[in-house]
């Protein structure tokens, strides 16, 4: 009986804890001097009302809900978007394709980056974007303070598990690892790969990009929902059999080495 109660408690906690996180938005109580001028909430398809067609990308990654705060802090007008996704993977996926030209910070186990106009943070189920319109030093400084407070408020859950083929504890995630799970993710995060996935609606793609001796190297872990879909990918990429997998044709500009990890999964290295 006690064991069952304990299990029920665990289930309740697992459901309740992420719900609690959404209430951990920035407030004037948490950050004196912060003035929230407008706060809007969107869930389900109501995201269309906020970003119209742009919302389809978020649906692809498993959108749960969004809170948008228009705030004034240290005389700077700043827009904060808190996207809560249905999984940590989904939150990281959105972060990973939205961080082009965003300089990685990634310290103390946090996943975040900044550029002139925007600071981005991936924390647990949340993808958070803090945007200032001016790009001035004062606006960036104010944004940095907001992000710092957010890091205190939203814990970095341990929910993001990278596949071992992509894992590298010594390397940063921002800018080097991408998670893609659909056509729109490809178009936005890896457009040069779009052709290979034509006619393949369901897949997962993890990518780690590294640079060695000035040359880019990429590793991919690809999972498909059927063996047929995997074969289609191999055909679309014009690969030829080699060992326990495939490789690119002789004379190709990129050298692909593809290892078959089952009927629906492959590991790709491109040099």
């Amino acid at each position: 009986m006690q064991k069952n109660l304990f299990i029920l408690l665990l289930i309740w906690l697992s459901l309740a804890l992420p719900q609690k996180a959404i209430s951990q938005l920035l407030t004037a109580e948490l950050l004196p001097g912060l003035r929230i001028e407008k706060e809007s909430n969107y869930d389900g398809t109501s995201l269309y009302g906020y970003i119209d067609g742009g919302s389809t990308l978020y649906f692809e990654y498993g959108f749960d809900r969004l809170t948008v705060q228009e705030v004034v802090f240290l005389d700077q007008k700043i827009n904060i978007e808190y996207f809560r996704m249905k999984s940590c993977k989904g939150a990281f996926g959105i972060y990973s394709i939205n961080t082009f030209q965003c300089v990685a910070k990634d310290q103390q186990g946090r996943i975040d980056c900044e550029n002139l106009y925007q600071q981005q943070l991936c924390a647990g189920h949340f993808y958070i974007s803090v945007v200032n319109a001016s790009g001035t030093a004062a606006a960036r400084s104010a944004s940095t303070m907001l992000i710092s407070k957010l890091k205190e408020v939203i814990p970095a859950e341990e929910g993001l598990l990278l596949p071992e083929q992509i894992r590298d504890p010594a390397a940063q995630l921002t800018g080097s690892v991408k998670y893609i799970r659909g056509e729109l993710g490809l178009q936005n995060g890896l457009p040069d790969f779009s052709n290979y996935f034509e006619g393949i609606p369901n897949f997962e793609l993890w990518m780690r990009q590294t640079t060695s001796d000035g040359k880019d190297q990429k590793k991919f872990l690809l999972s498909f929902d059927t063996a047929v879909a995997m074969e289609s990918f191999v055909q679309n990429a014009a690969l030829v059999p080699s060992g326990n997998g495939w490789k690119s044709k002789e004379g190709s500009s990129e050298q692909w080495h593809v290892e078959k990890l089952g009927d629906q999964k492959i590991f790709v290295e491109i040099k």
Partner: protein
Amino acid sequence: MDKEEEPQPNSRRNFFRLLTASGAGLVLSPVIAAAPAEAAENPQTAKPATNIQDTLKYPRNENSMPGHFPGRVTQVNHSGCIRENIIQQKVVDQMLTAAMLDLTGKKSVKKAWRKFVSPEDIIGLKVNPVAGKLLTTSHELVKAVITQLEQAGIPRKNIVIWDRREMELQETGFLPENYPGIKISGTEQKDAKGSFFDANGKLYGESMIDKEWSYWADVEGAYDEYTMPYMVNGGKHSYFTKICTQQVTKIINLPILKNAGASVTLCMKNLAFGAISNTGRLHEKLWHDTVAEVCAFPPLRDKVVLNIVDGLVGCYNGGPAANPQFICNYNLLLAGTDAVAVDRIGLNIVSKKRIEMKLQKEESPLASKFLQRADELGLGISDNSRITLKTIDLA
């Protein structure tokens, strides 16, 4: 593959799901009545059917796309059109004049505009405010167009600035005080109290859609109560706004030079997704088809006489939303009657910028699918080798 978290955008509140008047009791126009009845066999990969074939039966007129100048695009560049982040009205006036004279081959602004419109026309200026103040069709371009229309003898009362969402027009400064004497209208509307519903609980947007004209597609639009005001109706019909079908006689299209993923959202996207209701259902499987096919319906095909792309400020990534990091000054205008050709040139410019910024190595073949579809429908020319691009460098 991990199945534990498939995206289900409307699963949380399906019990609120609303299917409005689209399902029953509507007046059947020939287009609606002839909607294909068969669903696609494989919903995962097959393309849903649409009623495009029925609309192609309508006879074309002299204004029908691609208009007076098929395959011709004029690009006007001016490095001084933005100074200290402020768009220079006088420079934009010059750029527009140069574009109009070159495109039409006329010697005066008045004659150039009268090639497309007359004082009897009600002229709709289709702007694009969806990304907010940072990346809306610029007021400088809109004001330049209005000034030149007036020079061509068009009274201000005959000009309508329009888009899908009236509230976005207001947020981006398309307000009566900034445009005295000009009507500003949107399909989706809120009242002064911020409500989408009138005293009878009816969406204001419902009175703005024309059920005589519908883009039918075999994809169901099902929305919760919070989304419905932005979609106006659910179901399988997307109705055209009365602004297009009843209120204006000519349309001048003023999109912005923006990317949409590796593709672009320019002339045809601005028209197609801006002119119909119930668009949410069309993004996933029918984006390219919708962009092209909706433009083939007479309310757009026969009324859009001119496209002027606002490329003073644009973006190359993060679009169609406005991410300041990716907003850039292209310092140009594109003009043409052929929306397909103008979009092709716009795609060239945006793709070049994306390649230069190392976002991609080459143009994605998928990026131009909507152009090919529009070409098949006879709306214009999508092949670079068949387009005549005239570039004018003013400074």
